């Protein structure tokens, strides 16, 4: 499903260049659950941002279902993010102005879903993450673990092909972290391809494959 060829990512201008990714190549097949590990600053987030269509590599190729992503226009890129990708962030990033239901509806809104259908789907997802009773709450009224579950619900709302999670358990305690892992594993079992960045080697072991990055290279 995903093919990355010889990808590099260099930040900064000429004098102070940081090589975040240095000739990375790999493939991910549909239905895989891949964990990306590596020590801090090795370029995991950079990689994930590129995979999610939020950033551009400096050189190399990124194919998503045989489409070369960095050849897409801005508008197509937005659509790519909207329909193909679900992103889960370490810091949840829920919109405080919106109720949880409305947060989940976000990608659906930009996808042009009618409000009734949107609401129905959001309810479904709330149930899936076990928070049906919190639909009207604002994010600040939820615990961290609950917030991350809502964030996952939002990420998968528009039936993405690929779920990218950047340290989804990084801000959570062990118990909540495990719950999130459970949820991700369940989604993976239902056929969702997942790429997860994590520091936690134990969590990484639960994935079907581990990609280890060191200094911008796969080892």
């Amino acid at each position, binding site marked *: 499903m995903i093919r990355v060829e010889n990808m590099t990512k260099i930040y900064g201008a000429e004098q102070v260049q940081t090589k975040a990714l240095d000739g990375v190549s790999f493939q991910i097949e549909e239905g895989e659950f891949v964990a990306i590990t590596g020590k801090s600053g090795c370029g995991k987030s950079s990689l994930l941002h590129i995979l*999610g269509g939020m950033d551009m590599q400096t050189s190399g190729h990124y194919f998503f279902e045989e489409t070369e992503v960095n050849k897409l226009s*801005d508008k197509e890129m937005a*659509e790519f*993010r*909207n329909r193909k990708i679900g992103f889960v962030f*370490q810091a949840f*990033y829920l919109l405080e*102005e919106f109720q949880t239901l409305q947060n989940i509806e976000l990608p659906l809104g*930009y996808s042009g879903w009618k409000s009734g259908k949107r609401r129905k789907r959001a309810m479904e997802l709330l149930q899936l993450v076990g928070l049906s009773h919190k639909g009207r709450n604002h994010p600040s009224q939820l615990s961290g673990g609950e917030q991350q579950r809502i964030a996952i619900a939002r990420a998968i709302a528009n039936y993405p092909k690929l779920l990218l999670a950047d340290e989804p358990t990084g801000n959570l305690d062990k118990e909540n972290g495990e719950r999130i892992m459970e949820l991700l594993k369940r989604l993976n079992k239902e056929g969702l391809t997942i790429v997860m960045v994590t520091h936690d080697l134990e969590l990484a072991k639960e994935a079907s494959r581990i990609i280890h990055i060191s200094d911008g290279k796969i080892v």
Partner: protein
Amino acid sequence: MRYSIRKALTHFRYYFFTYLSVILEYAVGVAIAAVCFNLLLSCNDKLKEVEKALSEDVLQVTYWGQTDEWAISPDLMVEVRRDADIGAKQEMIYVPYVSWGFSIPDEEWRNVYVMFPTKEDYEKLVGESREEKIYVGSIVEEYLVELEKISKDSKKIGFFYSNLLEWNEGTLWLGQQTIAGKDTAEMEIEEVEVVLNKPFKLVSQAEQFSLQECIILPPEYMSLLENGRNVGKDAIVLLPTNSERSDMQAVGKLLQRLAEGNEELHFEVTSQLVALRKSASDLTAEYQDLVYVSVSILAIVMLGMTGVFIILLQKRRNGVAISLAYGATKLQVFGELFLEVFFVFGIGGFIGMFVATKVSPKVVIEALEVVASVRFEVVVAVLLCTFFETLVVCLFSVQAVKSRTLVETLRQTHR
């Protein structure tokens, strides 16, 4: 689009109390500005009216204020157009009918006559429009036709023909309107003997008697008048004729004063107009200052809103980034922000306009008979201003807050 509106509304509701002060400030700014502009434009119109009257082409007398004896109805306006030249080639006097508030009861319609200076004029008019243009109240703006009510034995008749003074008795072409029902009108042309048996008299400020009963002459003819007096170049002479109408009392009074040779009865149009022009332009200048003040208020509100919005956007950085990450285009996000600000200014502007429509009619300049009526132009200007302020606020705030890339924003808010 629907979703963007909804999202903008949610934000607007969430931050409503943050925006409240801006909304009220903008409302005040708009209200003051709108009232000022209404007044200014009304004054300006007055000024134009006066200027026009002062120019050679159109001589216009507007009566306002109050004389000792008669209250004056404000809609009474006489317009004398000396160069009017439609249809007939001769120099003519034109008194627009509508200004007189003149109407003929239905049952008297069959007695309405339309008078034409020449047969050709008659044929031209009747040829052009058989039905509509010839009956009372509908024609006069376009055709130099004057309607006059003539009873069977009538000796009075209104004239518009410039040769009037040379003409004492003779033939005029009259079209007689024979009306069976309201809808069918037929004109028959016939020659009518008309005998003018009233001497001309000089009066002025004939506000309360019907102009319908007057012959209105340009001053050039005054010297020809039997008892013509020392009338200024632009004076208007009104000649009351007999009538059964109640305002004959006023006519009587006028006639009486005339008989006494009262000098006051001279009515100099021009000098009065000049005075009016001065006060109108003075006032216009005065209100111009107020306009500057109100425009400054609007500008300050715009600055204030920019400040508020920049701070809000800084707080909401990740909201924007998240929207982008989940498939919004930059344009969509900008649209949402625009809408949100537009709600703020829109509601403020609406309140301001509402207040202005209530306040404006109460702002009256008595000396000019000017009321700051609500002007369409001002409504449009407020709309444009609202749009403009919204755009500027959005562009500035977005420029001030935006990061170079989406990922940078995400990393920024992460810290």
